[in-house]
């Protein structure tokens, strides 16, 4: 039950893009095409789930044991950066087709605030390791959902006849705002 709650909360109610404002840069940057949006979504889901679990283990068994929790930010970002590099290398060797599909997006993930954000929030919420994995996975799932929805809207926006100053990002932000109102409607779910 607890796990179902985490999933619904992270995907719909507290969607990381629409209500917590994490991962806005890639959300605006790669949501112009459906293909790139799904590629980015898969890559982020993969890295976020892995990073959540690893940072959880590091926090519990290294930082807390050695009493150096104040190094959390530095350690976590280093773990995430090296994890991204590692995933890139492994994929290149083992599955070239998957690597080609998400290759360009992998380096970008280091500066996606969702990965670090979820890792820190998991620690703050005091989740155990299973809850952490579920929370990381569902947060990224919510991000992918937002990205794919936005991509399908933006493909239509491109042909819309609007004032030139609104073209591109301003209109995308306004569309994101309207979508965010729709997501606010989910708040009654729980």
């Amino acid at each position, binding site marked *: 039950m607890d796990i179902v709650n985490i999933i619904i909360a992270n995907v719909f109610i507290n969607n990381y893009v*629409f*209500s*917590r*404002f*994490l*991962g*806005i*840069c890639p959300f*605006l940057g790669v949501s112009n095409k459906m293909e790139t949006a799904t590629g980015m979504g898969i890559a982020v889901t993969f890295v976020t789930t892995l990073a959540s679990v690893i940072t959880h283990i590091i926090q519990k068994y290294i930082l807390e044991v050695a009493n150096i929790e*104040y*190094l*959390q*930010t*530095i350690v976590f*970002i*280093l773990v995430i*950066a*090296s994890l991204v590099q590692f995933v890139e290398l492994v994929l290149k060797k083992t599955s070239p087709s998957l690597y080609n599909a998400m290759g360009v997006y992998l380096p970008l993930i*280091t*500066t*996606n*605030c969702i*990965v*670090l*954000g979820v890792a*820190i*929030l998991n620690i*703050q919420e005091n989740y155990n390791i299973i809850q952490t994995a579920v929370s990381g996975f569902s947060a990224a799932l919510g991000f992918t959902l937002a990205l794919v929805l936005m991509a399908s809207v933006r493909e239509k926006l491109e042909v819309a006849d609007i*004032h*030139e*100053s*609104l073209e591109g*990002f*301003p*209109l*995308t*932000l*306004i569309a*994101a*705002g*309207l979508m*965010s*109102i729709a997501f*606010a409607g989910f708040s009654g779910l729980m």
Partner: protein
Amino acid sequence: MKTSDIFKNGLIKQNPIFIQLIGMCSVLAVSSSLKNSVTMSAAVIGVLVLSNIVISLIRKVIPDKIRIPIFIVVIATFVTLVEMLMKAFMQPMYQALGIFIPLIVVNCLILARAESFASKNGVLKSALDGLAMGLGYTIAISVLGTIREILGSGTLWGIQLFGENFQPAGLFIAPPGAFILLGILIAIFRSVVVKRISQE
């Protein structure tokens, strides 16, 4: 590059929020009131200037291949410093900004300035560039924060502006308001300010 050019770039021509659209997460998230916006700006300016200075100082000894991880470590160090200072001296504000203080590490604005400016220019110029870009960020987030606070809660810097019968539009301090207002602000900035500069 002259000093005035650095400031013109940071504030207007290459304004990080209105033109480059980087580092948007914190702008959307903490601009629900002017006080939060200004505090967040101070933290960002501090980290940006200090990391630019350090990266500019060590730019010649950093091996090219691992420069990005090194930049991130430098930035993370200053973010941790800011975080500890705020925790010690500004507890309520630290609670209000929450996760967005540690997330300054992944603010693309800071890494972008390290990579594109501080790693190529001298110390003084890099420090000025950090200050200028930070002020550009401050302008954007403060304007957004002012509008959102007035419309969304009828106050400014926590002071009640209107009579008791005023009904604030809660939408504007909620997430949708942030997206919509920032979209409108970018459109206005681009059509008014950028046009005037290109005419000059």
